[in-house]
């Protein structure tokens, strides 16, 4: 197994359009929710989300190409471009691993609306093409100058973490020198209404992960990308190494389609596998970016899994959910939260679980409720999805990896 580095990262969320804006926002403990104006929410129970700002056009991308990208792909493009630039690359030959759950659903919604109206088929062919994520991601690759096999994972809310995990495996096993990996999802009416129908959205619009009275999640949108590269190749290119990926583990929770096992069995499995593969004990993990949706069932399962995994070390394990700031980015969550982990390693701080008033009794770990300065060497991030997709990634700051 070869050592695996991350040499570039990019992020776009409702907190900001790049690494700097997101780092500043999380460090300041800001929340980034606003009324949704992308579609009609007047008949939903909830009307707010972590809706991101996107530019009307982007230098270096033709207006036509930009217009043909769906909202999510635009986010993916911007985050991927930032990651490549940071890595000192202007494209090149490399596999691309993508995670998304809803893909270009807003385009599918437009296709549906015009079809049921029945007036014309104008632009419907373009919508059918644009709805398909492989079409969008292939176009993104061309815009980035990246050439290579494309793999799109859609494991619901773990997709982004799975994409980075697949990239890690390809590089560590010597099947690729470098891989562009990340995830994205944009807000869409179908998905927004879907979570509302499940009564999974917080009626107040303020998610409170690990609060005893938490009442649901807030949706968000955005993208996170990383350039995963063999340490050897990174050194040969003379680029800075942002962090190492130490391990990745995936498992399937077969308890229920939408509910986790109440004791967090699959989460425990991936945390144990990932830390063992990295040769680490739980007390060596300086921070966990939890899946922490703010729904009653998820947070209990994850808290129990962390306690079972860490045992006596649990009170020392520092945990937060950054979904309290930007919402749940679904297929983009795992990769965006991975990039946030990289920021904690780079800038030596811990982002917070905001808006917690009374900590749930199930929480035995150190819940970070305000941003903290901290020595952060090694971090772990959990991602869980509908259907039972569970994933854990472990990252370490390079100067502690030698």
């Amino acid at each position: 197994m070869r050592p695996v580095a991350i040499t570039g990262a990019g992020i776009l969320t409702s907190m900001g359009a790049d690494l700097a804006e997101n780092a500043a926002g999380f460090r300041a403990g800001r929340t980034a929710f606003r009324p949704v104006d992308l579609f009609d929410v007047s008949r939903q129970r909830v009307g707010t989300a972590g809706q991101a700002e996107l530019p009307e056009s982007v230098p270096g991308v033709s207006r036509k190409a930009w217009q043909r990208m769906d909202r999510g792909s635009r986010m993916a493009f911007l985050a991927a471009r930032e990651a490549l630039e940071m890595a000192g690359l202007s494209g090149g030959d490399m596999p691309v691993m993508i995670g998304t759950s809803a893909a270009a659903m807003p385009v599918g919604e437009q296709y549906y609306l015009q079809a049921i109206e029945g007036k014309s088929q104008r632009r419907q062919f373009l919508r059918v093409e644009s709805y398909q994520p492989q079409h969008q991601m292939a176009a993104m690759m061309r815009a980035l100058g990246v050439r290579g096999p494309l793999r799109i994972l859609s494991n619901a809310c773990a997709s982004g973490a799975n994409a980075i995990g697949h990239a890690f495996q390809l590089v560590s096993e010597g099947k690729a020198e470098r891989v562009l990996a990340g995830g994205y999802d944009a807000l869409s009416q179908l998905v927004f209404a879907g979570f509302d129908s499940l009564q999974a959205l917080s009626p107040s619009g303020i998610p409170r992960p690990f609060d005893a009275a938490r009442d649901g999640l807030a949706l968000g949108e955005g993208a996170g990308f990383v350039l995963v590269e063999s340490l050897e190749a990174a050194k040969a290119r003379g680029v800075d190494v942002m962090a190492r990926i130490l391990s990745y583990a995936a498992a399937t929770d077969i308890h229920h389609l939408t509910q986790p096992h109440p004791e967090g069995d699959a989460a425990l499995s991936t945390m144990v596998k990932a830390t063992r593969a990295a040769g680490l004990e739980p007390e060596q993990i300086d921070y966990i970016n939890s899946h922490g949706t703010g729904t009653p069932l998820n947070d209990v399962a994850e808290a129990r899994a962390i306690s079972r995994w860490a045992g006596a070390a649990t009170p020392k394990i520092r945990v937060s959910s950054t979904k309290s700031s930007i919402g749940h980015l679904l297929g983009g969550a795992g990769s965006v939260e991975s990039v946030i982990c990289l920021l904690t390693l780079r800038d030596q701080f811990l982002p917070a679980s905001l808006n917690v008033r009374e900590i749930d009794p199930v929480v035995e770990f150190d819940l970070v409720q305000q941003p903290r300065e901290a020595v952060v060497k090694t971090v772990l991030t959990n991602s869980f999805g509908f259907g039972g997709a569970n994933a854990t990634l472990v990252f370490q700051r390079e100067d502690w990896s030698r």
Partner: protein
Amino acid sequence: MIRITGTGAVSTAGWGVPALMEALDSGTRPVLAELSRERKSGSPVVTSVMRVPPAPPTLPKSPRLRRVSPISKFAVGAAIEALGPERMAKAAAGELRLGVVCALLNGCVNYSNRFFGEVLADPSVASPILFPETVFNAPSSHLSSLFNSTAPNDTILGDSAEIFTALEIATEWLLRGDCDGVLVVVPEEIDWLSAEALGLYSCEAIPAEGAAALYLETGGEGPQLLAIPDPVLLGPGCDRAEALRAVLNAGGALDDGRTLLADSRSGVCRFDAAEDRAYAGWSGPRISVRETLGEAFGASSGLQVVAAIEHLRRGTADRAFVATLGGNEQAAGCLLG
């Protein structure tokens, strides 16, 4: 050495590999059905399609399968056939670490259609039962649950050629020791949304549905997965025939008269032109599943693999090159022998 030791098929010819092969051997096309829907203005839209016959009563009774849409039933039917009773018993006893990879293009389009219709009518009463089944990885989740496996489970998206990436992932898992065996399943279901969308590409294409399942393991009895070359991306203006030839060469396939070619021709001249050029003069046996059973996207490509394996089992070919020219992403294939 990775071998495909189990196959399953649900097609417009029926449930099971025997029904698939009988239709392909005889060239009997299933009877066309009509999919009709009303619209707000204008006459109803009618689309000719090929449907999978009703499910046999042998599908298992499971709480997970009570409310699923056809795509999950097709996936389960094909997967059960590919696994067989002995492996299913081992899985039920927790003695088989079974990985699952599903490859999709359309995914759970029936429930997405129904749910979005409910949202537009009144989101406050949209069904919470439908929404989870709209998620791309619902079918693969049901499979892991049904077979009692907590091993890795991935759903991947792509054009009709995505099954070959699924085979690559399965190979990675097996070689890494993540699983004892891997089910690769490619299911698709029909809905007017996807059927009419296909019509925008060609009014001659016949939308279809179904699923194929392949069980892979290291060892066992069955054809060996000899090569899965990297897919060749199809950019704007690329030579699609050249892309196929590149896959053929990278896969090490030789037209020696004993190598079966399982291609993705559908009978639509415009779609088939690149394949006709790429394989001009192919001297070995050749099958074109879509020409007989309709266009079920990734599922059709899965049926190509299943049919190719049957030919290898019969001894009508020594090797089989299976390749798909996808719609908008890739040319891809694999060599079996």
